[in-house]
Each structure stands twice: as structure tokens, then as C-alpha cells.
């Protein structure tokens, strides 16, 4: 909440006052969906990856592996917990934003769908990373070197329409753009890509991550030798 407030003070009030409206929306309001997405992605990944990495690291995972629970239940527990925390955080950011700007949400159901699906997919990704990582460096390499740059370059704090055509095309290869664009559409009905394409990509990402998790448990990858 403190970080979010700082974002609003710096981007919304200090810099935002000097930036003209983007797509008919004030800059402070424009960055809300991007800010939510940034926090959803980074928190989902870190919650879930630390959640499963730590029991592996300290050895308490023995209890989970010897417990009468199915793979699905384990994933549901870890990913569900990580996603729930991220979703709650998303709503806290939303509430904090409402203190600073006049919020409008055009399609609350679509917004909810984006928040829930993103939290779930990236918690699954975090879970995968937590199982894959066998040291702390590996645990932080993907969030630091891949996710954070993608989020910042995915139109969280700007519209890709502000970029030269070449970089606009490059941006379309950034998967995070689809998430930010979709969530922003649910707020203000402005989007870089069609909302259904965005929703479809989140769903596809969710399925891919789920498939990887199923494969990991089937083969015992880095969990059961």
C-alpha cells in the first residue's frame, strides 16, 4: 500500500500533472491497471515460488510428499494461497488508488476475471519456478530479469501508441502487454489489443503453466527422486 501510494505521488501527482491525458483518461488514472498488473505478477510469482521453495530448502517438504494428498490438492493449496494473497493485494491497490483519483470501472466482471486469471497463472508460474530453482539465485533470476522488464515495457505506465511504429510492433511480442491492455480496457474501454485476445492469452498461459505443473508431478521433477 505504501509502495502504491508512492507510485501515485511520484507518477500521478508529480509527473502526471505534466503529462497530458492518455486516451481521454488522466495519467494518474491511466496507470492504475498497470500498477495492479505489476503487483499481481510480481507478488503471485514471489508468493508461490517462495511458498514451495522454502519447504524444499529447509527439508520440511518431506511431510507434504508423505501426506495422503493428491497432486491437485498440493497445487491447489500452494497456488490458491499465493493467488488469494495477490488478489487481495490487487484490491488493496485499487482501494488505495481510489483515494487519489476518481476511479471508474466500466466492466467489473471482466476486471475481476483478469485479476483472478492473472493471479492464478502467475502463481502457477511461481510454483514452477520454486520447484525448478535449487538455489536462491535461480529463484530470483526469472522475476528480476524477465518479469520486471516485461512489465515495465508492457505499457504499464504508458500507452504503446506513444512509441514509434517499430517499437509498437516489438511491444506486441510482450505477453504482459496483453494483460495490461485487457485490464485497462475493463476500466476505461481503451486497449492496445482486442480484449478477447487478451483474455484468450491469459487463459492459454494458465493452461500451459498447468500442463507444466502436471508434468512435473507426474515425473516427480525435482520433488520426488
Amino acid at each position, binding site marked *: 500500500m505504501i509502495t502504491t501510494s508512492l507510485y501515485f505521488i511520484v507518477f500521478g501527482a508529480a509527473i502526471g500533472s505534466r503529462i497530458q491525458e492518455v486516451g481521454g483518461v488522466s495519467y494518474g488514472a491511466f496507470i492504475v491497471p498497470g500498477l495492479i498488473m505489476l503487483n499481481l505478477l510480481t507478488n503471485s510469482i514471489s508468493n508461490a515460488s517462495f511458498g514451495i521453495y522454502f519447504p524444499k530448502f*529447509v*527439508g*520440511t517438504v*518431506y*511431510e*507434504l*510428499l*508423505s*501426506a*495422503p*494428498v*493428491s497432486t491437485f490438492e498440493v497445487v491447489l493449496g500452494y497456488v490458491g494461497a499465493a493467488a488469494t494473497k495477490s488478489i487481495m493485494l490487487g484490491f488493496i491497490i485499487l482501494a488505495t488508488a481510489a483515494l487519489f483519483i476518481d476511479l471508474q470501472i466500466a466492466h467489473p466482471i471482466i476486471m475481476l476475471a483478469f485479476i483472478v486469471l492473472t493471479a492464478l497463472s502467475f502463481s502457477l508460474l511461481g510454483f514452477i519456478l520454486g520447484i525448478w530453482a535449487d538455489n536462491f539465485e535461480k529463484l530470483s533470476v526469472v522475476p528480476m530479469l524477465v518479469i520486471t522488464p516485461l512489465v515495465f515495457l508492457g505499457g504499464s505506465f504508458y500507452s504503446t501508441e506513444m512509441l514509434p511504429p517499430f517499437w509498437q510492433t516489438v511491444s506486441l511480442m510482450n505477453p504482459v502487454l496483453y494483460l495490461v491492455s485487457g485490464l485497462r480496457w475493463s476500466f476505461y474501454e481503451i486497449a492496445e489489443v482486442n480484449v478477447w485476445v487478451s483474455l484468450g492469452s491469459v487463459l492459454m498461459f494458465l493452461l500451459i503453466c498447468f500442463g507444466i505443473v502436471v508434468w512435473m508431478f507426474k515425473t*516427480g521433477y525435482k520433488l*520426488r*527422486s
Partner: protein
Amino acid sequence: MNAVDEPILRVSNLSKTYAGGFEALKDISLEIQKGEIIALLGPNGAGKTTLISAICGIVRPSSGQVTVAGFDIARDYRKTRALIGLVPQELTTDSFESVYNTVAFSRGLFGRAPNHAHLEKVLKDLSLWDKKDNKIITLSGGMKRRVLIAKALAHEPRVLFLDEPTAGVDVSLRKDMWKIVKELRESGVTIILTTHYIEEAEEIADRVGVINNGEIILIESKTALMQKLGKKQLILDLSESLSALPAAINRHDLAISDDGMKLTYTFDTQSERTGITALLDDLKAADIQFRDLNTTQSSLEEIFVNLVDESSERNSAAVNGAAAE
């Protein structure tokens, strides 16, 4: 076979080869009856923990089958795992959870409804009750070991695995633990423990299994094992010193002490004739007087060391033989 005869644990032809090609378990078969206490002995890296981990679901067996109370550990994993409690070798606990919460969590994780009275009993038996609200990180190593035991007992398992439970613990915990083990056995719980402390196996186990290089060298009742493999020694305290063994008694397997005051006769308790009478007759004929005599029997530790040495020699001979071919 009816349910009464069904062993609580049956391991059939269990093998485990790790990805690197290391064969941790080689065609292990064993049956354990309900209510037994089995001690698994073996040097480090013999395969004891891998065997336990395979039965508990932590390690995937490469081949073979394991049933617990008649249920297959792969097909009916929910049933088998709910019956098993495991105290791991390493001190692996959560750090920031309270003792009571972590034990209550274990009970829930293993599918049992909350039962405060049971948890209270377990924690009191392990002298943990006054620490129930403490965070685990604040506990000493011995106390953490107690927490691990409490977690394993939280869901009232019917089969309890104790993987080197007394490694690095003080006398009082050992005593508490063996008291609990005896109580559990009385309530019908089967206990399988691995240990390096052979006196523990000697004191508590009904049967002893010896594992080396991923193979069970033997599994026998403790008394039968000691009788079968135990050598006895008859020690004679002589009235007068002997400088050397007289020819008249030389045919016996005798050893003389440096001061010439003690004769030690080693004999096999299983053989039909121990040779004691003949020795005493010969001593009388040679006019060798003795003041006292006593017998000693080899401990389980000596038996164990001999077995492991023999098995290692056999393995290295086999390897050398294969290399020579």
C-alpha cells in the same frame, strides 16, 4: 490369506536406481507383522533411509511393490500414507510456527479431524506441553526432535518410521522416546527404526534387519540372531601362571593372556558339542587349576560389524571377479 495373516507392511522385490545410475536398493523383500518393532541397522549410505522414503512416498521405487495393511502404496496412496507416521533423520521443522500449530497442521494434513485431547497427550508425553506456544525457532535441537516425533504421532499412525531418532539427543529424550515406543507397541502400532546405536536395537527391537549396499543381508528375531551368530567365550582365571599352552590342551581353541593367568576358550553356541566338557577334562588331566570361570556372549554390535564386513568383502570379491573376467 485372511486379514489376520496379512502383514502390516510387505515389501516385494523393491529396487531403486537413482538417475545417476546409483543402485540404492537392490531387490529388497521383507514382511513386517502388526505390532512388531523392527530395527534396521546398516552403515551410512546402506539404503536405510531410501527404503523408508520409498515406503512413505518420498522416493519413487524403480521396481517392486509395497503394501501397507494390504493397500498398495502407489494405487491406494491415500490409505497407506494416512496409516504411516514418519520421523525423518534431519531436523527439518518450520521455524516461525508455534509447536501446537505445527502439530495440529500435521494432523489435518494427514486427513484427521482436529482432536485437542490427543494432541495434548502427545505433547505431554514428549514434555512439550509447556512449550506448545513457543515458536519452533526458539527451541533447542533436542526439543525440535521432540516436535518431529509429535508431528509424526499427531494423526495416530498405525505404522511409525523412526529414522535415526536418537542421533544427537540427550539421555532424557531417549528415555522418553523408548517409553513412548513401548506404549505405542502395546496399542498395536508397528515401529520400524533405523539406528546406529546397536544397544538400542538390542534393547527394544523384536527383529533386527541388517542392510548393506542396498541389500538386506538378514532379518531375524533378535534373540535368534544372537543365538545363531553369537559366539560365546569361556574365560578361566588360573590359580597359577602358565608360560605357554601345554600340549595336552593345545587341541582346543584357546588363547592365553599375556600374564599367563587367563585362558579364553571360544565356542559356538549352536554346535552340538561345545567342547567345554572335553576342555575341562583335559585341564584336569594336565593338572591345571582355576579359581574362577565366566562366560561372555558377543553383542549385537559385534555381530553387525562381522556381517557388514563379510557382505562388503563378498561385494568387492564379486566386483574384482567381474573385472578379472
